[in-house]
């Protein structure tokens, strides 16, 4: 089974979700991410979803849960790259992504995380 790669950039971890998520993949990502937050003493997690043209409530739930797990481990999560059609659909779907900060792109997301870590 493929696993979503996690990259380290300073004190932040970067995850780019480019494939359709299913249960096992989502769980593996949460597992890997929590381990890496502890191992790398990461202060922030950046989740890039610019490749996702569909975000349903399953993926939304996975992102919210991941942000909560990261917070428990003292790391902030920023979601970046949401496609406009996805944003419109999520609002209509009623998905609020509680506890997840958003930024337009990776640069702004990183800046947000670095500011927060000060």
């Amino acid at each position, binding site marked *: 089974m493929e696993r979503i790669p996690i990259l380290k950039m300073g004190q932040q971890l970067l995850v780019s979700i480019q494939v359709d998520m299913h249960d096992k993949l989502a769980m593996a990502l949460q597992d890997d991410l929590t381990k890496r937050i502890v191992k790398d003493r990461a202060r922030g997690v950046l989740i890039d979803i610019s490749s996702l043209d569909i975000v349903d*409530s399953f993926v939304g739930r996975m992102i919210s849960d991941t942000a909560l797990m990261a917070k428990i481990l003292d790391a902030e999560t920023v979601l970046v790259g949401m496609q406009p059609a996805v944003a419109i659909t999520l609002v209509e779907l009623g*998905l609020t992504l509680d506890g997840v900060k958003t930024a337009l792109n990776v640069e702004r997301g990183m800046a947000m995380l670095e500011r927060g870590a000060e």
Partner: protein
Amino acid sequence: MSQAQEGDGCSLLLACDEDVVRLRKAVRENMIHCGFSLIDQTKMITAASELARNALRYADGGTAFIETLKKEGKPGILVSISDKGPGIDDVELALTDGFTTGGGLGLGLSGAKRLTSEFSLDTKRGEGTTVTIVKWK
């Protein structure tokens, strides 16, 4: 459901997560062919994805049926997801935002209704559920 001319339909088996991906692709292709806008595609595919995941989660899978429609010259797309699961006991409750019996977010059914032009649900306890959504251009 409204009166409409019926076009070609196709069926897909929903047995695993990969089938949800296949369903999305099929709906996408169909909608592009009919000239739907990107935002309409996104809403409809997201709604279909919610229903397909429901069938997998609650009923061990099901069947998806996609059909192009035409009404007064306007194209439409119909997606119907059927399962032979436990059925829904309280439909009104199930259609309430946040209500879930499966540890989800409880937005699938109500969301699918909001994202589409037409929504209908047929369920029988112990026999299964069919949810049909339609998006008109």
